[in-house]
């Protein structure tokens, strides 16, 4: 039996969602077609759009369906930058942080290659953004900033950031704010209107929908340029045939996540806290990252000294326990987390990181199994040392 404690990488598809998805996969009809079958498919999409809108606190017309988080981040960042920069050529600064997901960091870096200037808001060792730096920076150079993009919750540490403050500060300089809420959505309450951001990215597979569906929430008065051109779907911002089955599954998963939000936050929060405190008892040298901060309830990030993450992951995997060192990487290499480095940790402090993320299927038994396996694994991992 495998024990899955890597919800931040991807969550298991909920059985009810899988059924809904399969049902809609077998229905024919392009949501943009005129005939009755097209209309049926369109109805499924629009019903779902309302569900998603309700789930994130936005108007239905503000929901732009995408293929997932990376596409949403690309569309928001490039689209807002191009728009704002085309309106006012002086605006060529992108403000972000070093702890963003690569979908944001690499997009911003790409814009830098195209002539943008990138400024990083400092982040401290507890994951907190330096808001006064932002105030000072915008007071000085606010008229040159095209957009601010900062994640709502960090996918490695789970730390939730005060995006409402950020957008309030940016508003006085007419700077649109984008937030990657992929890690937050479904785990903490996300309210687009209340956050006051221009755009917000969410993704289905982190909340129990299949991979391949997500949404970018774009304010009705927000202008942004499209990354791709085509048939005009989704306010012309995201052309391409609508994924009706995916959209339906996404809405179903969002309904579950929202219905259970408070109860799950309490349950997973206490499971996570039990896990953290018992790990501290078993391994006193273990450090919990950002312990006092507001974090996603099911998210626990640890630093274990004198070992490397790949040894820990290997040993836990041998015990059929699936956890992570940081965000999943295509090359399969467990490098030192850019998030921890971005928070000011030295490489040597960050080599033995472990990210344990719980979700709707996680149980006391899962936590117990990890607590049983971890001390032995840690001892062996310490003997194996760090690779470098």
């Amino acid at each position, binding site marked *: 039996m495998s024990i899955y404690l890597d919800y931040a990488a991807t969550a298991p598809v909920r059985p009810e969602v899988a059924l809904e998805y399969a049902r809609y996969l077998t229905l024919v009809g392009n949501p943009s077609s005129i005939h009755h079958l097209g209309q049926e498919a369109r109805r499924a999409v629009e019903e779902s759009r309302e569900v998603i809108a309700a789930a994130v606190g936005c108007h239905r017309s503000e929901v732009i369906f995408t293929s997932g988080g990376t596409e949403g981040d690309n569309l928001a960042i490039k689209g807002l930058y191009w728009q704002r920069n085309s309106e006012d050529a002086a605006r060529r600064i992108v403000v972000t942080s070093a702890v963003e997901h690569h979908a944001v960091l690499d997009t911003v870096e790409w814009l830098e290659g195209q002539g943008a200037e990138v400024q990083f808001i400092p982040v401290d060792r507890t994951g907190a953004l330096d808001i006064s730096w932002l105030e000072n920076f915008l007071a000085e150079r606010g008229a040159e900033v095209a957009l601010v993009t900062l994640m709502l919750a960090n996918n490695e540490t789970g730390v939730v950031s005060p995006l409402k403050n950020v957008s309030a500060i940016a508003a006085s300089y007419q700077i649109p704010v984008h937030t990657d809420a992929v890690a937050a959505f479904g785990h903490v309450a996300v309210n687009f209107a209340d956050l006051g951001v221009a755009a917000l990215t969410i993704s289905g597979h982190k909340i129990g929908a299949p991979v391949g569906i997500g949404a970018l929430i774009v304010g009705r008065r927000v202008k942004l340029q499209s990354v791709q051109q085509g048939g005009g779907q989704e306010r012309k911002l995201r052309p391409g045939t609508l994924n009706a089955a995916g959209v339906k599954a996404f809405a179903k998963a969002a309904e579950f996540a929202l219905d259970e939000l408070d109860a799950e936050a309490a349950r997973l929060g206490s499971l996570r806290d039990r896990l953290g405190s018992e790990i501290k008892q078993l391994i006193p040298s273990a450090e919990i990252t950002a312990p006092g901060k507001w974090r996603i309830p099911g998210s626990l990030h640890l630093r274990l000294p004198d070992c490397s993450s*790949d*040894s820990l*992951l*290997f*040993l836990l*995997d*041998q015990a059929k326990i699936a956890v992570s060192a940081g965000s999943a990487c*295509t*090359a*399969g*290499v*467990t*490098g030192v987390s850019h998030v921890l480095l971005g928070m000011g940790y030295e490489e040597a402090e960050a080599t033995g990181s472990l990210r344990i993320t719980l979700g709707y299927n996680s149980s006391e038994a899962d936590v117990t199994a990890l607590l049983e396996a971890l001390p032995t694994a840690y001892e*062996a*991992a310490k*003997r*194996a*040392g760090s*690779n*470098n």
Partner: protein
Amino acid sequence: MKVLAAMSGGVDSAVAAARAVEAGHEVVGVHLALSRSRGTLRTGSRGCCTIEDSMDAQRAANVLGIPFYVWDFSERFKEDVVDDFIAEYQAGRTPNPCLRCNERIKFAALLEKGLALGFDALATGHYATILTDSAGNRELHRSEAMAKDQSYVLGVLTAEQLAHAYFPIGITASKDQIRAEAEERGLSVANKPDSYDICFIPEGDTQDWINDKLGVNPGRIVDRVGNDLGEHPGYHSFTVGQRKGLHIGRPADDGRPRFVLEIKPKTNEVVVGPKEALAVIELAGTRISWCGKEPSGLEEFHSAEVQVRAHGEAVACQFAMVGNELVIRVAEPLLGVAPGQSAVLYVGTRVLGQTTIDRTVSAVPVDAGGSA
């Protein structure tokens, strides 16, 4: 036993892992990420170190049904192999990075990690064989596939390392047989080309790469008696035995081509001379390792064979410890032996041990031939 199979993404290590599985061992595949900049992981296949190779290794592991992981040894690799390679060139020597990688990464860092994580042995796709003598001591021998034999680059292994080494493809008649076996096993790397280049040198041009790292450092080209023959752009651009690229305007007195005989980093001189002066009769080194049980009576000269490059011939020799040096005297002169290369001693097919060559003695003393 629990076997950690190092999988480079090539056909040899894939078949090695397959044979380990077939032998009934509990096998886990691991690919080493050795490149420091992830960018080079995206530049396509070069036989090792790229993302494509990592994927090839993973696909092979999938076909074999074994778990697979990528472990990052890039920092160790940079320090122990790449930086060492540069330092050796800077010291006027000609290093063998594959041998260093076996010595310090695969059979040191990786093996130690594997043992700590509960493995009993490390399997690699090297063409070499391990035999056990009557007293139970492990011995390293040449591969059956002589054309592919890699015992030379494993000559640095010590008894402790050999105790946990496992070379499943050592007993194989030829590389063709390995490719055919890979095909039969459904491994997609069956026809993947061999890698010959040094894995961390992107364009495969060692000299260019070294020049880039060490820059321009002009010095003099001299003959064996010290006559100044011209300028060189940096001694690290030359290796012993090299003929081309000297750009000496003036021909030798006898009109014969000149070869690099020696590199003197201290004085920044490149010594050149006639081909016969390349011949050496004695090699010696102080960095010594014994592959398995250390021979006894080392103060006396013993007969053996010595090989000084990966695909060179072994020649008859006598060896003994003289002070802290392993001194090797060859029966017939060897051409183009450079300090930094490893001299590996063999008795029959067995690898006895090796030394990194510190100095050589020319077969043609400077005052004997007349032609300096």
